């Protein structure tokens, strides 16, 4: 991933998109083969089912520098594994609330049902989300190691040295 610019006018959002194999990923494939042009800001990760998307993946994406996360799954009733998309919806609903309580705008996490035949919808959603996040600006979570001493504490030491505020 390229360096994130702090200049707001030049800000290009980084979006991580988790697409399910059977519907949304195939839909994105269709958008590609149909030569539909859309914002190139999303890095698509294919998973077998939207129900496979562990909320840990999403928070790790934000922590690793994503400005937004998009989840794509099959329409209700269409899940290849019967119920995976319902799980995804419940996790998404709760996680969006949790992230909101931690100061992450709800628009940074989006869930869309896109079927294999809806290439145009992939195009529309990608463009829309990119525009939304451009308007929101970058999310500056700094990279953090998963375990051990992953955090620099210089900032707090500096504060202490200044006598706090």
């Amino acid at each position, binding site marked *: 991933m390229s360096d994130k610019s702090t200049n707001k006018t030049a800000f290009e959002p980084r979006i991580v998109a988790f697409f399910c194999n059977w519907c949304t990923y195939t839909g994105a494939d269709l958008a590609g083969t149909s030569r539909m042009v859309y914002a190139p800001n999303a890095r698509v990760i294919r998973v077998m089912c939207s129900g496979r998307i562990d909320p840990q993946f999403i928070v790790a994406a934000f922590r690793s520098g994503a400005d937004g996360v998009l989840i794509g799954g099959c329409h209700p009733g269409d899940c290849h594994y019967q119920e995976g998309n319902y799980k995804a919806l419940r996790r998404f609903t709760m996680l969006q609330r949790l992230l909101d309580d931690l100061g992450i705008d709800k628009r940074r996490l989006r869930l869309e049902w896109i079927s294999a035949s809806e290439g145009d919808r992939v195009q529309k959603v990608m463009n829309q989300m990119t525009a939304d996040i451009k308007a929101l600006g970058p999310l500056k979570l700094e990279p953090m190691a998963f375990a051990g001493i992953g955090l620099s504490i210089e900032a707090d030491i500096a504060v*202490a040295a200044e006598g706090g505020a």
Partner: protein
Amino acid sequence: MSKPKVGLYWCASCGGCEEAVVDLGEDILAVVEAVDLSFWPVALDFKRTDVEAMADGELAVTFINGAIRNSEQFEMVEKLRQKSQLIVAFGSCAHLGGIPGLANVANREAILKEAYSNVPSVVNDNGTSPQESTEVKEGTLTLPALWNTVKTLDQVIAVDYYLPGCPPPVKLIKNAVMAILSGKLPEKGAVLAPDNALCDECPHRDSKPEKLTIKEFKRPSQIKVDPEQCLLAQGLLCLGSITRAGCEAACVKANMPCTGCMGPTSHVKDYGAKALSALMSVIEAKEAGEIETMLKNVVDPVGTFYRYSLPASNMHRRYDLAGERGDKR
């Protein structure tokens, strides 16, 4: 041969961890027999100068409880790290940030304002708030600087082992002390507790239905708990399935659902996200509206899923209140 020297210290914690040491009961005599308690300011009269006078690595092991949230705690744990061969993060706060870690949903300014003026029981007409340095006629008085963000112990110094729990179960403390004394320690960085989920040792394990689905989350005060049945199956938000075992289901045995103080097993990176994931997967609701209604009873998602682990999580703190000091973590 002289007895190995042991230190105990506390930072941002409630004192419950020290209670857990006292809970060793008569076994504490065996411990005192085997080791030399060289630093334990809560129970015995030791000063910072006693630590400063020690040689590097003089303490065989130091158990530190509490999260790190001010300059004094940071200074002390840095000194103790230097003077100790082993550092054990003792209890949820040192391990994952613990309850004090929930302060990361606010910031220093908000915390001071709340504690020194907003709280209804506080009368503070002069707007007095703690100053790090105050001039009086006898000289300058100083107080430690409160940090904007609460940190886990391993986010400020290197930690060798972790003893989880709020407070750590006596049995695990005993095992850890014995392991250290006999030198039979696992690989560095290990959590000195079993690495399976609490459901494994839960007395209600067998009452858990084959396919568990929940229609409605309930709070313990809203139902009459059946003391023989899986609490999650009764609709209580029990986090046992994602929480590390080792407490022998102490809360569940008292009809209270597990809140996750032992933290995750080694297979989970972010406790709260995984806990949310697991709980959301067993809900029956499928429609968006139905789901929203059903989740209304989870009033505080951060306090529910990250109750003991916000500073150790990927999110670490509330993002938009981090301030402009570069302390966004």
